[in-house]
């Protein structure tokens, strides 16, 4: 049931969502999950290893792949990882990471930042 879209993927020729490299990472995940499902610690270690070799920007592609393949466990796992990676980062870093721009009116953003000024303390340097 997890792989209803995989056949579709292999049938597509011009698919922008998933590249070969991603396929080798995402698709073996369910088998690995099943093998060491009982042992959470092992899974954590496996996942940490996996992601140490992946740049944050690559994570975005992994997420899109997991989303396209409708693979919930992998999607949740990647989202959790991104959350851990960005939780202590600045607003600017997050904007660059997600490719977003500020669309606030002048003064609106300052007002918001001032209201929660304490949440900007202890943030990682860019």
């Amino acid at each position, binding site marked *: 049931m997890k792989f209803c879209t995989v056949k*579709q993927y292999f*049938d*597509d*020729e*011009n698919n*922008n*969502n998933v590249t070969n490299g991603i396929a080798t990472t995402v698709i073996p995940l369910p088998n690995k999950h099943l093998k060491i499902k009982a042992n959470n610690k092992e899974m954590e270690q496996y996942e940490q290893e996996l992601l140490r070799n992946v740049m944050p*920007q690559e994570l*975005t*592609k992994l*997420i*899109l792949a997991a*989303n396209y393949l409708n693979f919930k466990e992998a*999607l*949740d796992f990647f*989202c*959790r990882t*991104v*959350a851990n990676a*960005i*939780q*202590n980062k600045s*607003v600017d870093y*997050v*904007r660059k990471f*997600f*490719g*977003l*721009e*500020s*669309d*606030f009116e002048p003064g609106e*953003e300052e007002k*918001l*930042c001032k209201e*929660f000024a*304490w*949440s*900007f303390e202890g*943030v990682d340097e860019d």
Partner: protein
Amino acid sequence: MSQTRDPRPQPRSLRQRKNHLPHDVVLNILTRLPVKSVLRFRCVCKPWDSSITSPNFISTHLNNTNNDDDQDQTFLIQTCIQYNTRKIPIISKVLCCDRTFDWLFEYPTPSVFDLNMSRMVGSCNGLVCLVRHGNRSTTSDSIYLWNPSIRKFKRLPDSCLSQHFSNGQDDWVSTGFACQSKTNDYKVVKLWSTPVVAEVYTLSSDSWRRAEISLKSNVVVSYIDIPDPHFVSGALHWLAYHTESEREREFLNRMMILSFDVDNEEFGEMALPDGDKLHQRSLSVFKGNLAFITYGCPEYDDDIMPDSQCFIWVMREYGVHESWNKLFSIRFENVDISFYGCTEHGELLLDKKVKEESEDGEIKIHYCNEFTILSNDTAIVLLDPKTLHEKDLIILRYVTDIVTTFKESLVLLD
């Protein structure tokens, strides 16, 4: 360009921004962040600000906190240190402690709370209800709802009965805080004496209304055993004394549990478990069930025994008297204990004071100077009633209160 049939046609804009994450995926990420990060990221862009403040997002974020068993359970600790001199002001704090009691940090409290005069009466979904006592007979209590994680608070309007009571010697007030999960609403219940009357405040309507206490069997509530009520199984529960119109009975036997159902806003009553009771009594919540804790010395014993006991009764099936089950019976040697609450994992928080022995009736003289602390220090232990394993919680000192149901949340007060 070759014409290939793309089974999932994408709009042109998406194809250009091929690495952009869909909004629901972005929300999936944001709901996993701690409160401080989420608040900061309100400044990223308008769509994010709008999503983060939506009730849907706040609920999902809260549910993530509920499921993350090991990470996010925390305790709120109120402490008070008073020195032997007016030159040093009384220091009261609200601290947040992690589940294993390994680290502490302080939540800044608004000065208007006047923590020396305040008490936290309950917490639901990250909101804390705090009562600041009025000055004797001039002013009544002030009640605040506070979300320490987002540093917002709201003072409740004065209740309808505030004007009518004189705060004389026989009067008492008890305040309880509960949430109504069906409607995502919050209620504060206030009981006054004498005679006993009740009022209910609802956050969504920001208003108070009177509530009738009409119990079966013509029972009239005469006295509430402070401290504050406990919220479990959709209702608030107080230990109360009642009078029956005709007969005289042993004072302690007339104790019962008064309940207030948050959904239908009706009061009810429940009997305590049958069985031996000790001097001190308290209600609590043990792993999601209503619990009755009794500790100290046997109630009919006038001799001061060196050993204390503690019995823990749990109501396995809510509302069913026969389901009261005496889960634990613990004996403590040569210590006095005070009960502070149960953790969600069924551990007990107790203050253990070793009984001081005076040799030959000697009176100990303590040398006092202005740096002597007058407040009672506490020695809180975390006791697992199954294994009797104790952990000394050395980072907790001068504790006046512990809230065991706190978690960080984005819940707003407007």
